[in-house]
């Protein structure tokens, strides 16, 4: 057991180190190597963290979906922990997307927000994960609540393809820089900055899910310990 914990700690600290190195490398390339964009100017550099954050939001949402399906099938704590971790990551990354996007738009479009299909569906998706997390925080942690939350986690994932294809299907103002045809990043250093940003946020998202799952599993262990304490006739607020 101790060996498993030690190995799990080594994996976790390895992921933390790798995330930090990749993020620092991305910052270096974005600010010291990638050129300033000709039409938008320096504000275009928001793109190198805005898009990877949106991608990390998708990773969180996918983790929430996988965890929810896994929990409904197996009823194991670890799947439920994955779903909760994914939902919370989606909220954090979604918040970054919803803050950095309007700051870019202020310069590019002249206003912070418009009810464009991509913006509206992204905000809707973020609100679904906020609802999921609020439900988990206030509705208890019984099997019924977990099943209901798992259904919401699966429903939330249904919005992901809608966000992704909204630009192609319904138009709007949101640009499509990265497409199947190769994208609009003309300079090799712009491409490097973007590729590093995407890699850094993939590793960072996995690290954050891992970290949040550890917290959730500790919480489940504490709940079981409290039940054992009650069985043994101990006060469940025992501190020492």
């Amino acid at each position: 057991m101790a060996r498993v914990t030690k190995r799990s700690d080594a994996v976790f600290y390895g992921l933390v180190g790798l995330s930090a190195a990749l993020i620092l490398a991305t910052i270096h390339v974005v600010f010291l190597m990638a050129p300033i964009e000709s039409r938008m100017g320096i504000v275009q550099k928001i793109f190198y963290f805005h898009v990877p954050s949106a991608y990390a939001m998708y990773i969180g949402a996918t983790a929430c979906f996988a965890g929810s399906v896994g929990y409904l099938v197996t009823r194991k704590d670890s799947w439920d922990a994955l779903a909760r971790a994914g939902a919370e990551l989606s909220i954090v990354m979604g918040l970054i997307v919803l803050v950095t996007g309007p700051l870019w738009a202020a310069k590019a479009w002249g206003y912070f927000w418009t009810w464009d299909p991509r913006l509206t569906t992204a905000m809707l998706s973020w609100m679904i994960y906020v609802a999921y997390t609020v439900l988990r925080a206030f509705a208890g942690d019984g099997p019924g609540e977990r099943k209901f939350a798992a259904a919401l986690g699966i429903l939330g994932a249904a919005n992901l393809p809608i966000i992704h294809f909204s630009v192609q299907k319904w138009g709007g103002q949101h640009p499509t820089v990265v497409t199947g045809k190769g994208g609009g990043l003309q300079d090799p250093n712009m491409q490097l900055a973007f590729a590093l940003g995407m890699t850094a946020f993939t590793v960072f998202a996995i690290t954050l899910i891992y970290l949040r799952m550890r917290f959730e599993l500790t919480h489940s262990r504490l709940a079981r310990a409290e039940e054992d304490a009650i069985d043994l006739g101990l006060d469940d607020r025992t501190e020492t």
Partner: protein
Amino acid sequence: MTEQTQPQPSSPDSRATDFKAVEGGAGEQYSGSTLLVEAYSAIWLILFFWLVSLWRKQSALSVRLSGLESAIDRAAAAKDKKESK
């Protein structure tokens, strides 16, 4: 010394001017550098507050769990001792 010409008093009507709203958004009124700094500050602040809150909750939970587990071990040992007598 030349005599300075005094400005002629003008009528309020001749100074009338129009204030019109800008069309097509606010355009260049936002500085790109300021927006960039705001965006990157927001990214790190959001991540910082989330990670600090998670770390604080994890620490509190670990302290409570280790206290409870040691209390359970002591109670279980005492129960075994009582039963063996």
